[in-house]
């Protein structure tokens, strides 16, 4: 019987509305990327449930719900090609919570929904950790608590304000302990079971393949790719080539890395990297914004020691075993004047000469002419650069589509307008046609100073070429620099001019709205601190930080945790005991007298509140009847009874009598 009663109460539309509101808020950020039908399913279930609650109608039959649930799972499976991964996982969570909403009847159902809302919150945090999402975390957490508290009062829907006050109190009191745990809980490096492959979705970064247009779209984003702190003087902008994915295999249309990126081979650097001297050594720290990919941008050429968890691929690009989804600090050293692979085996260089046969005949012819006219490899490279510089090539974000099968031919001899990837790709094809080993390197070029550190944005994304020269190894050649020298010296904004469609922060020094840029650079400092101190708080940073307090060891952290629990446990307990300690004994009869006087609207001085005086006052105000007489007699009996204090039952009876008494006041 009791259960039937509660089941009815749980249908109260106000309560359902609150739960639906919580779910809607938590699902909101996910709706931005979820397939539209998943959002629609969720929204329709929510609306339907609220409608049913308003109408007080019964729920749909169970078999229909089961059918709908299965259909939704199947749809997600088909859409994402499986259920594994962050996106299908969260989509499943959202859609299932919609389905669950439809059958929600009991307190347990409601609670499950609240827990699902917490997981949606988690999903958002895994997706982005920018500062605004920290506010989202706090707000979402408190909202969840409010609804959870709401569930505790099945009989009456309490005003939200009361619940909110309780929720705020709880969250605030719990915060210091949570912060201590944040500092002391031992962080372990690396993933526990792996990062799903779709973790790059929704994040920006260099991709695993390159085709015309892939970098120019990236260049239109002024998002921060990473931040750098140099120890000592920063190298000039033209030397800041941040190496990313390297592309070897060309099918005439797009470039692909030959093996899964990166081919992890060296965790200690290969011996074959020679050094030209100590002049180009630079030490710096990269503060990476999570990009969901496996490469780590770094200046050529990184020297030992490599940061932990990072290794170097065969193409000298740094990489990690699993996609980078955490902000991390990577201390690194590079030697800018190092020779890259000067003693490479010739038989290994074959793949850097491979070209699709039958494609781009005019390019081949041109390259063969150059070979005949050049005295040396260096001479040939210079010839090619001169070609780019002297012919009428244009550097632009909107080069127009290349449609021919012989795209390099079309670019070199017809359109002659391109972005860096066009130039790099054409240059490498020219070199390969001339029989030289060459490859395309993507990464970032340049950096913007912002006080103590430098910002590298997605708009700094760049592609250049590397050509292998006997005795010198891989030489960096940047054909874009030949066409648009400003790009290398001053950045994208200077090279493209005001007419190009570029975000404000990518425009650099020539942009007129400079004060706004200044404001955003100020903001970036805060963001940099957020990334450095909070988000990058991993194993190394934790050890560094805690060893200042002599707690750098695992054992000490664990002791610290135990101590925190004990201290806070005692603190909580003492505070609670203090709050619920006994209050001074009260005179229940005095309280009842006050109640009686209030009900009869009598205002007697405290010296004249004896039973006789009250009776007289009641008579005077026309309230004297059998009922009030009975009450007053009762009161008098208790007040002057021998047994003191009065028996609680008697007091209770008197309280009841006074409460039920309905004095009719004369108008």
């Amino acid at each position, binding site marked *: 019987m009791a259960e039937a009663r509660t089941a009815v109460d749980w249908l109260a539309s106000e309560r359902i509305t609150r739960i639906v509101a919580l779910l809607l808020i938590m699902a909101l950020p996910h709706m931005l990327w979820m397939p539209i039908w998943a959002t629609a399913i969720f929204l329709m279930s929510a609306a339907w449930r609220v409608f049913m609650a308003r109408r007080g109608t019964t729920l749909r039959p169970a078999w229909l719900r089961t059918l709908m649930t299965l259909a939704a799972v199947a749809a997600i499976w088909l859409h994402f090609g499986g259920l594994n991964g962050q996106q299908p996982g969260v989509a499943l969570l959202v859609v299932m919570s919609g389905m669950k909403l439809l059958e929600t009847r009991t307190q347990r159902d409601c609670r499950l929904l609240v827990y699902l809302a917490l997981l949606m919150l988690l999903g958002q945090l895994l997706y982005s950790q920018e500062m605004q999402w920290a506010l989202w975390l706090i707000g979402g957490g408190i909202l969840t608590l409010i609804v959870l508290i709401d569930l505790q009062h099945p009989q009456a829907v309490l005003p939200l304000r009361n619940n909110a006050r309780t929720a705020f109190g709880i969250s605030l009191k719990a915060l210091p302990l949570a912060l201590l745990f944040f500092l002391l809980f031992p962080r372990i490096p690396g*993933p526990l079971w792996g990062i799903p492959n779709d973790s790059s979705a929704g994040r920006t970064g260099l991709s695993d393949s390159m085709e015309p247009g892939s970098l120019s779209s990236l260049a239109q984003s002024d998002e921060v790719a990473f931040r750098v702190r140099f120890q000592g003087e920063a190298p000039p902008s033209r030397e800041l080539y941040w190496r990313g994915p390297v592309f070897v295999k060309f099918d005439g249309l797009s470039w692909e890395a030959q093996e899964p990126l990166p081919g992890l081979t060296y965790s200690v650097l290969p011996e074959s990297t020679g050094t030209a001297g100590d002049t180009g050594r630079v030490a710096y720290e990269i503060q990476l914004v999570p990009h969901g990919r496996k490469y780590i941008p770094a200046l050529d050429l990184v020297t030992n020691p490599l940061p932990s968890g990072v290794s170097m691929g065969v193409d000298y690009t740094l990489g990690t075993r699993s996609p980078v989804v955490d902000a991390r600090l990577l201390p690194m050293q590079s030697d800018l004047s190092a020779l890259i692979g000067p003693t490479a085996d010739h038989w290994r260089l074959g793949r850097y000469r491979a070209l699709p046969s039958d494609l781009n005949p005019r390019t081949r012819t041109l390259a063969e002419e150059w070979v005949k006219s050049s005295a040396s490899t260096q001479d040939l490279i210079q010839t090619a650069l001169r070609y780019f510089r002297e012919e009428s090539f244009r550097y632009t974000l909107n080069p127009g589509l290349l449609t021919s099968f012989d795209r390099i031919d079309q670019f070199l001899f017809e359109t002659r307008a391109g972005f860096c990837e066009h130039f790099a790709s054409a240059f490498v094809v020219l070199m390969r046609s001339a029989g030289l080993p060459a490859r395309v390197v993507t990464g970032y070029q340049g950096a913007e100073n912002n006080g103590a550190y430098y910002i590298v944005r997605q708009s700094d994304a760049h592609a250049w070429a590397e050509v292998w020269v006997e005795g010198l190894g891989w030489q960096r050649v940047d054909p874009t620099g030949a066409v648009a020298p400003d790009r290398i010296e001053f950045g994208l904004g200077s090279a493209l001019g005001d007419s190009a469609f570029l975000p404000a922060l990518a425009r650099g020094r020539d942009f007129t709205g400079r004060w706004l840029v200044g404001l955003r650079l100020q903001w970036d400092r805060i963001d940099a601190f957020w990334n450095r101190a909070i988000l990058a708080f991993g194993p190394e940073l934790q050890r560094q930080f805690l060893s200042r307090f002599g707690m750098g060891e695992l054992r000490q952290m664990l002791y610290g945790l135990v101590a925190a629990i004990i201290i806070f446990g005692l603190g909580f307990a003492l505070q609670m005991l203090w709050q*619920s300690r006994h209050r001074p004994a009260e005179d229940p009869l005095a309280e009842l007298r006050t109640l009686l006087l209030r009900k009869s609207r009598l205002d007697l001085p405290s010296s004249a509140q004896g039973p006789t005086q009250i009776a007289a006052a009641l008579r005077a105000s026309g309230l004297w009847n059998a009922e009030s007489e009975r009450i007053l007699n009762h009161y008098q009996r208790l007040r002057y009874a021998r047994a003191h204090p009065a028996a609680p039952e008697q007091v209770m009876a008197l309280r009841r009598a006074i409460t039920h008494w309905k004095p009719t006041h004369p108008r």
Partner: protein
Amino acid sequence: MHNPIGWISRRWNARVDAWMARHHPRRAGEYEINRKRIYILPTRAGWAYAVICLIVLLAAMNYSNSLAFMLAFWLGAIGFLTMHETHANLINTAVRLGPPDAVFAGETAFQPVLLRNRGRKPRMALKASTDRKASTAIQTQDCIDESEALLAWTPQQRGVHPVPRFSMSSDWPLGLFRSWSWVHAETYQVVYPRPEPHSEGPPPHPAEPEDGGTDQPGDEELSGLRDYIPGDSLRTIHWRSLAAHDQLASKAFTAPVSDAQWVDLAALPSNLNLEQKLSRLCRIILDLHAQRQTYGLRLGTMTISPASGDSQRDRCLEALARYG
């Protein structure tokens, strides 16, 4: 039948009951819930919450995600804090049982439980239940100074039964933990015999109704409603009008005029056993009362002289409850 888990849990419950009987003897008067008398355990929802915290923590570790770490620790700390909150919500409250209204066997008895807050902060969502998990609780009761909760239990046999051991519990604020205290009070519940569904034949000593004082004998025919007078039985309250007008009203019955009648245990057919006889007497008394008759009761050596009205009915029914 041969369910080992069921067997173990029965054995376990028996052990717990024996322990309870030793440690929580029945006591009269006010029962103060103090530190030594409070138990606290996570609820099922609390365990589920712990699993959610663990999921968040594992995700945080896998993704090295600082905000997820923060969420995990925050949720964990909140859980830890509410353990204390739940405990503090119950401590320093005093419990006393009010006088229960008599019920018929098989009916649910609503035992008033008077709560007094001896501490300084309001108590939220307290529940009275015959088990510790509050599964028979019918309401949640807040308590700022004093308030009255109801304990629902169902006595199956007539008699005067002690109110069973029950728990005052609370899972405020988040339902993750439940703190409870066992109350075993010296209060007795009068349980009338279960009335027979229909009256069988006329009362034993029928001074036949002389005139048409009753329109339809044997039926509780409502003649109207009157204002509720404190002391009216719960059964005469017209609940529907409470729901409609938010005002207590009692059912009023026509009061026919007739001579005194005698209800006698010895006059019932001998093929009935005692409980059946008492059930029939109960029905007869109820019918007579409904007809506003004057009647007396003879129960073996005990005699209740003829009278009418609520008090006469209650006196007679209580005699039935206590008989034997």
